[in-house]
C-alpha cells in the first residue's frame, strides 16, 4: 500500500543564520520549526555567509545552500544575489535571522515582494527604536525598566561611566557580545576586544543581579501579539547563551511582551531579554528584532512561531495563541558532523552546496 498523498502546499523558504555554533544563529532552529508545520511542507534554501556554518552541511535540515554577500556590501549586491537564487529556486519567503543583515532586508522588502519573494519584517523605525543604543530612551518612553547605560567612543570614557554605574558593570557590543567586568582593567580589555570586533560605540551597562528570562514573541504589525512564550535560562554558557531552558507561567512576562508589541506595532518575531532582580523587578536588557536560537522551544510548547510568520508573510490568516505548555525544557547539545572536504570546497569556491 502506498502512503497517503500529502496535499499540503509546498513553500520554498530561504533562511539565514545557519551558524549553529556555541553562540548560535537561529536558522537551524527556525528550519526545524518550519519542517514541523502541519499546514505546509518546505524546501529549505540555506543562505550563508561563512563556509563553515554548520547548517550548510546538515542535509536533512537544509536542502540547498547559497552564499550571500556580507551585509557591508550593501543592498544592490544582495538584491542581485537573491535574484539569481530566486531564478533557480523560486523562493516564496525569506526569513533573515541576523541583526546585522536585517536593515538590508527591510530596505529590499518591497523589491523582493515585486519578484514574488515575501518577508515579514519590522520597519526600519521599529529596528531603530529597540536598538541597544536607544533602548534606555525607549524604555523611559514606554514604561519599561532598562538598566542605566553609557555609550562609549573611547576607552578613557570607561572610568567616568564606572563611577556612575559601579562594579561589576557589563561591557557590550552594539550588535553582539557582552562581558561582565569587575575592575577598570577588565572593562578596558573588554572595550578593546568588543570595539575591534563590532565597532563603536561600545555600551557600558549597569549590572543587574538576578535570573535571566527571555520571551520569544510574534507581532502581526498592528500591535497585536500572536504568540509569546517565556523561558528561563537554566544553564548559561560563558558567552551568556542559554544551553538549557524551561518555559514559565508568569502573566507579568506576557504582559511585558504584549506591551512592547502594542507600543511599537511590532511586525515579525522578536526576543525580549530580561533580568528578574531579587526584589522581583523586571529589567529589559535587550530586545532582539528576530527569533532567538531557542525558538524551537516555542514549537515544543505548542506555539510554532516560525510557521506562523510564514503564514503572515504569505498573507494567510493567523490567530493569536492563548495557551502554551509550561515546564517544557530544551537542552542544547554539540554534535560533530562529519563531511568530506569536497563539500567545503564546493561552498567555498562556488558559493553553493
Amino acid at each position, binding site marked *: 500500500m502506498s502512503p497517503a498523498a500529502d496535499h499540503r502546499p509546498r513553500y520554498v523558504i530561504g533562511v539565514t543564520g545557519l551558524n549553529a555554533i556555541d553562540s548560535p544563529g537561529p536558522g537551524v532552529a527556525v528550519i526545524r520549526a518550519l519542517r514541523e508545520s502541519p499546514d505546509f511542507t518546505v524546501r529549505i534554501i540555506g543562505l550563508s555567509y561563512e563556509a563553515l556554518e554548520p547548517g550548510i552541511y546538515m542535509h536533512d535540515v537544509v536542502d540547498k545552500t547559497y552564499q550571500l554577500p556580507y551585509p557591508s556590501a550593501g543592498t544592490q549586491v544582495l538584491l542581485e544575489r537573491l535574484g539569481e537564487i530566486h531564478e533557480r529556486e523560486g523562493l516564496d519567503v525569506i526569513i533573515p535571522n541576523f541583526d546585522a543583515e536585517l536593515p538590508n532586508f527591510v530596505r529590499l522588502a518591497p523589491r523582493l515582494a515585486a519578484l514574488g519573494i515575501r518577508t515579514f519584517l519590522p520597519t526600519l523605525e521599529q529596528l531603530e527604536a529597540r536598538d541597544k543604543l536607544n533602548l534606555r530612551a525607549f524604555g523611559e518612553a514606554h514604561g519599561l525598566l532598562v538598566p542605566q547605560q553609557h555609550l562609549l567612543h573611547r576607552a578613557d570614557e570607561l572610568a567616568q561611566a564606572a563611577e556612575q554605574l559601579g562594579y561589576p558593570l557589563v561591557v557590550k557590543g552594539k550588535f553582539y557580545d557582552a562581558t561582565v567586568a569587575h575592575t577598570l582593567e577588565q572593562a578596558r580589555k573588554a572595550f578593546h576586544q568588543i570595539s575591534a570586533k563590532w565597532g563603536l560605540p561600545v555600551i557600558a551597562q549597569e549590572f543587574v543581579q538576578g535570573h535571566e528570562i527571555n520571551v520569544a514573541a510574534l507581532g502581526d504589525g498592528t500591535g497585536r501579539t500572536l504568540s509569546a512564550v517565556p523561558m*528561563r535560562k*537554566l544553564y548559561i554558557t560563558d558567552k551568556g547563551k542559554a544551553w538549557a*531552558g*524551561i518555559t*514559565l*507561567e*508568569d502573566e507579568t512576562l506576557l504582559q511585558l511582551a504584549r506591551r512592547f508589541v502594542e507600543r511599537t506595532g511590532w511586525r515579525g518575531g522578536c526576543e525580549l531579554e530580561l533580568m528578574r532582580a531579587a526584589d522581583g523587578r523586571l529589567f529589559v536588557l535587550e530586545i532582539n528584532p528576530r527569533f532567538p536560537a531557542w525558538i524551537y522551544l516555542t514549537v515544543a510548547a505548542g506555539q510554532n512561531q516560525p510557521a506562523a510568520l510564514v503564514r503572515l508573510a504569505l498573507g494567510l490568516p493567523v490567530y493569536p495563541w492563548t495557551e502554551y505548555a*509550561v*515546564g517544557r525544557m530544551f537542552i542544547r547539545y554539540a554534535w560533530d558532523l562529519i563531511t568530506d572536504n569536497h563539500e567545503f570546497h564546493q561552498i567555498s569556491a562556488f558559493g553553493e552546496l
Partner: protein
Amino acid sequence: MKLKKNIATSETGFIFNPATGDSFTANALATEILQLLKQDRSPADIKTLLLNRYDVEPNQLEKDWDDLVAQLRDHQLLD
C-alpha cells in the same frame, strides 16, 4: 499557610515552580507534608497527624516544621 496554587508536586518528592522555573527534590517526610498541604489540611492538623504517625517529640517537630516553612518561603512556594 498555603502552597501557591500553581506549584506542582509529585509523590516522588519533585517540586516545580512554574513561575520561576525552579525545581526541587523533597525528602519523604517533606513530600508527605506537601501532599497534605495540597489537600488544604491546616498546619495544626498536619502536625497532629505527624505526632500520631511518627516517634517524634512535639518540640522537635515544631523546630523541623519551622525549618521547612522557612525553606518553602525562601523558594517562593508559599502564598
